[in-house]
């Protein structure tokens, strides 16, 4: 018999592997991308150096990086919570749209009454918008057992279309119809300047409010999962719904709660897009950015740990920002996405080493028995 590669399940992940694997994965991804760069006639070292500078060196670069990271942080947290407890909410995208719609609507409505009113109102509206959009698939999953992957995906499209409708094909509350040009080229009403979300400025470094909110949410989610009774119940149900039921937990309600929180956080990302950046409901900007989907990638890079999401959002945000800053003839366009995807694939592959040990064995053993169970 020939030599077989076997994956043996590890009972315990060696502690050292935790921090080492992501570093090794990123290094591996850089090497793979370097080969690509060499093949196309770019110098990898110079390219990486320029990216690092453009993303992280100056305070100005850092400000842009934090701005790019803000939506990713929030959608990443939304995905991290849901995926961590095995609720497959891939509807962050649509929940973000609805958060933006509600926050923009609130901003238009109460923007004139000053920041003290408008800011909390917009945040709450964003959370509620996202949570409401997640509630429908959530209820369907919890009480009717409808596959949430498929329904949340459908709700992304519906949410996107609704958003377009409000600006492009209706005379809705959100649309600006005050001038003849605005009637011809549809656009949203800009919220009152006094309701623009303030950034935190320290010696040129500007941190959008949404990012700070995101860090707070990350800390809250971390505490929720680690230190609260709800988080405890969620971890049990994620490990085994039968055990959860046995221990008297309301498992359906828990699924719904996860969807609501996850949707709310994604909605917050939408609110931040409006309050921090665009100040207007802007479908053309939101949809192609695909923050909701990228958030899942951000969460996966952080292995669904909320605090890790802060790091991975900054990392991916920095790369995205560098990509924008270096756009031009001599910088390979599209390198950023390529690199991000390669990194993610490397991280996914490295997961294997934390869960399985690779054993080479020669001869013997029925092949069937070699398939190790979860």
């Amino acid at each position, binding site marked *: 018999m020939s030599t077989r590669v076997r994956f043996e399940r590890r009972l315990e992940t060696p502690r050292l592997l935790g921090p080492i694997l992501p570093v090794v994965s990123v290094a591996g991804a850089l090497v793979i991308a370097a080969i*690509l760069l060499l093949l*196309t006639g770019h110098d990898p070292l110079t390219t990486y150096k320029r990216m690092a500078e453009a993303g992280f060196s100056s305070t100005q670069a850092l400000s842009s990086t934090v701005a790019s990271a803000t939506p990713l942080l929030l959608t990443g947290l939304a995905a991290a919570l849901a*995926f961590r407890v095995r609720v*497959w909410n*891939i509807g962050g995208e649509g929940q973000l749209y609805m958060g933006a719609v509600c926050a923009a609507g609130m901003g238009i409505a109460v923007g004139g009454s000053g920041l003290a009113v408008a800011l909390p109102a917009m945040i709450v509206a964003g959370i509620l918008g996202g949570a409401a959009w997640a509630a429908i698939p959530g209820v*369907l999953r919890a009480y*009717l*057992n*409808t*596959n949430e*992957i*498929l*329904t949340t*995906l*459908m*709700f992304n*499209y*519906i949410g996107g*279309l*609704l958003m*377009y*409708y409000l600006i*492009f*094909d*209706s005379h809705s509350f959100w649309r600006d119809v005050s001038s003849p040009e605005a009637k011809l080229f549809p656009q949203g009403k800009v919220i009152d300047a006094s309701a623009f979300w303030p950034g935190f400025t320290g010696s040129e470094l500007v941190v959008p409010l949404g990012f700070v909110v995101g860090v707070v949410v990350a800390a809250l989610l971390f505490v929720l999962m680690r230190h609260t009774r709800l988080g405890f119940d969620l971890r049990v149900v994620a490990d085994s719904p039968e055990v959860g039921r046995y221990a008297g937990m309301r498992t359906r309600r828990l699924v719904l709660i996860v969807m609501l929180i996850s949707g709310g956080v994604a909605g917050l990302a939408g609110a931040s897009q409006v309050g921090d950046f665009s100040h207007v409901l802007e479908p053309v900007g939101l*949809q*192609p950015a*695909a923050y909701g*989907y*990228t958030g*899942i*990638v951000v969460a*996966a890079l952080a292995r669904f740990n909320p605090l890790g999401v802060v790091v991975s959002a900054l990392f991916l945000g920095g790369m*995205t920002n560098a*990509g924008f800053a270096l756009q031009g003839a001599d910088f*390979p*366009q*599209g*390198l*950023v*996405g*390529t690199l*991000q*995807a*390669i990194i*993610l*694939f490397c991280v*996914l*592959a490295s*997961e*294997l080493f934390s869960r399985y040990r690779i054993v080479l064995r020669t001869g013997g053993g029925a092949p*069937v*028995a070699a*398939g*190790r*169970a*979860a």
Partner: protein
Amino acid sequence: MNDGLVVQLLVSGIAFGTPLLIAALGELLSERSGVLNLGLEGMMLMGAVCGFWVSQRMGGPEWLALTVALGAAGGVGLLMGLLHGFMTITLRANQIVSGLALTILGGSIGLSSYLGQVGGLGDERGRHTFEKIDVLGLGDLPGIGPVLFHQSLIVYLSWVLTAAVAYYVFRTRAGQHLRAVGEDPRAADAMGIDVARYRYAHTLVGGALVGMAGASYTLAITPNWSDGMTAGAGWIALALVIFAFWRPGFVLIGAYLFGVVSSLGFNLQVRGVDLPPELFSALPYLLTVVVLVVVSNAWAKHRFGAPDALGVPYVREEA
């Protein structure tokens, strides 16, 4: 008569719908085996850029250039399918995450725009395209002429493909095994069907179809390449598979329906009808959700539901 609304709608529906149809058939094969691939958009973009590149750089007669270009697009889709398969079947990584990574990899800030720039494709005008063929001179027949007999080769191929996939899935032994693997991999395994091999094969072939669907943009629809040119078609194809409840025939109907709907707004506006086109566009999605809910109960699920093991990695149990 051939300028009438219905004919125009059908013609543009087929034009918009053909890439959706081919991509959705690819995804259908993959999902029927239990592998969900959310990376369609990225794979289509890669197919579009690679197909265009090859067709621009290839010498030789037009038919050869186009064939090789289509093959190259299929090849790149196949490779991406292989990557997805390796991640999700061998390494048992989360299918959602791996698929989204493919979207980013091939997407408009990813490898497709990288290659487009390296190849300098953005400024070029296409040298080869699949032209519309007037079959037997029937293209001018009233009504059905423009719809059935004046289409490009890609459209005809997509019809053949639909029939082939339908035949394969429901009328062949391999198709029966495929369905079993997607429904109940444990039972299939117990009956001696190699679950991993079936999943790999269909993820790969599905990927190749998706790649070719992407190439149909650059080789048949517009004779040039631009960054992010599929503009979300991959996502719509994904929804289409669900809308069609994993049946090739419904995929064909659905693809043209989506195509009609996306050109409906324009056509209606031209004729002065004022209804929000988003409403029409949203209907298929709403309908899908309603049906998904309706089939949630055990009885209906068995008739119309998703493949039971869709999205679930298969790990053989050991007592």
